[in-house]
């Protein structure tokens, strides 16, 4: 199962981090990335730019309304993500527990969501289905 690990932090506190704290956070990420890459389960992992660079598009009366900023002002902001192909939720929780949340553990959290994938098109070969039922 593919899991998306969404990293939420307080951007303002993150900005106040010292260089050393920043280093430690990156090291924490690198460790998780190296390990998951070696296991072949890392699909993607990236930080997001700050929410003050966000643009939100919402359709209004059929026309896109363009708004400066994130879709909602929240106490903690989405700051990055991982996509990992894990055996089960426990494995995903294991990695999520090791991902630094960029606020020195004082705030922030990781939300785990599954990526069920897009439903694929219905195969047209009925004969194959019948064969395998008989076989």
């Amino acid at each position, binding site marked *: 199962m593919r899991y998306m690990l969404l990293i939420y932090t307080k951007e303002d506190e993150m900005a106040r981090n010292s260089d050393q704290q920043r280093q430690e956070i990156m090291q924490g990420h690198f460790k998780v990335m190296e390990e998951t890459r070696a296991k072949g389960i890392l699909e993607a992992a990236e930080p997001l730019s700050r929410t003050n660079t966000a643009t939100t598009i919402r359709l209004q009366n059929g026309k896109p309304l363009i708004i400066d900023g994130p879709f909602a002002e929240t106490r903690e902001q989405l700051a990055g993500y991982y996509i990992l192909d894990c055996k*089960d939720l426990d494995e995903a*929780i294991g990695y999520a527990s090791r991902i630094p949340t960029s606020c020195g553990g004082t705030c922030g959290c990781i939300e785990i969501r*599954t990526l069920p994938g897009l439903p*694929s098109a219905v195969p047209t070969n009925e004969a*194959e*289905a019948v064969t*395998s*039922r008989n076989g």
Partner: protein
Amino acid sequence: MDEVSNTIEAIFRRESGRIIATLIRIAGSFDVAEEAMQEAFTAALTTWPEKGLPQNPAAWITAVAHRRLIDHSRRERTRREKQEPLIYETPTAHQPEAEVQLDADEMEYPDDRLRLIFTCCHPAINPDAQIALTLRTLGGLTTPEIARAFLLPEPTLAQRLVRAKRKIAEARIPYEVPPREKISERLQAVQSVIYLIFNEGYAATTGDGLIRRELCAEAIRLARTLCQLLPGEPENLGLLALMLLHDSRRDARTDEQGRLIVLDEQDRSLWDKERIREGQKLVSRALGMRRPGPYQLQAAIAAVHSHAETAVETDWGEIAALYRELLRISSSPVVALNYAVAVAMSEGLEAGLELVEQAGESGELRDYHLFHAARADLLRRLGRKTDAASAYGQALRLATNGVEKEFLRRRLEELGRE
């Protein structure tokens, strides 16, 4: 016919937890397993009156349900070939066609119930749903029964179960016993679910008395299973002992009118000697393992009470010592309050009252009716009537349980008459 359906019901009660645990492992899905088990019990209703009871009814049910699972997976496989699977299924669910053997091992896999209990009590499932799911699957209680026990509308509870099962399937919560390094942490969640089930049944609320009794019995049964499966965990023994010792006082806790009778006023001849004996034995066995924990200590406290033939014979010094130990390993204002009461009974009312006030200083107990009730009781014993009356009043305002309210009202009236 009636006799057979009674037998079937009894078998369902006793064995369905074990059967469903095995079926879920094979099917990789709660819903598919439940459906197969349901079908097997329905088949029993028509087959058994004709052909007589099978020698091992649980094995019969499992075998029939297993066959249904194989049929189901054949149908599913055909369907899957037309459509990618969107639901989570364990690898076993994909291969039952490879001639699944219905041997004894398959049916008596010892870890199945353990897997089931850890999955039902997985921290990623909402705590209320953990309780409902545990009772539904391992306890074999029906949805209406659980709804009645928790005073919830049936659709609310049904919805809760559906959501929990969907979360298990879609987030792929594993169906396995956690690895060694995680087991004690996860075991705490399991123990707490069992204890919550017990407390729900034990709380002296008005309502369906029978179903509440059933909840306590179920919690005790689940704890027994846990002890049987993980006998080396002293907290499992402690939990079972604690519940047995509390449950032993059930018949003495209320009078004919359903009014609450406090511990020191209970008729101790009504205490269940059998449960007490078993509880006491479990406490010593658990403490002998030298890894004390909150359930063991609370059970030890209940055991001290159970040893006293009359209230005045209670060894309050021992109880205070046990609470002090409990406070050390799991400090909470409620434990501090109980410690204070034990000190009041062993060292003196003044000393106890002082500790009660200290326990209340953090403010966390401000809305806890038992804090005010305990304070009121000590003030009453000290002869400070006015203060006692005002504390009883506060407790009364905060209490929500009808039986407890009635008790506090009675105390308040007695105070006025003295």
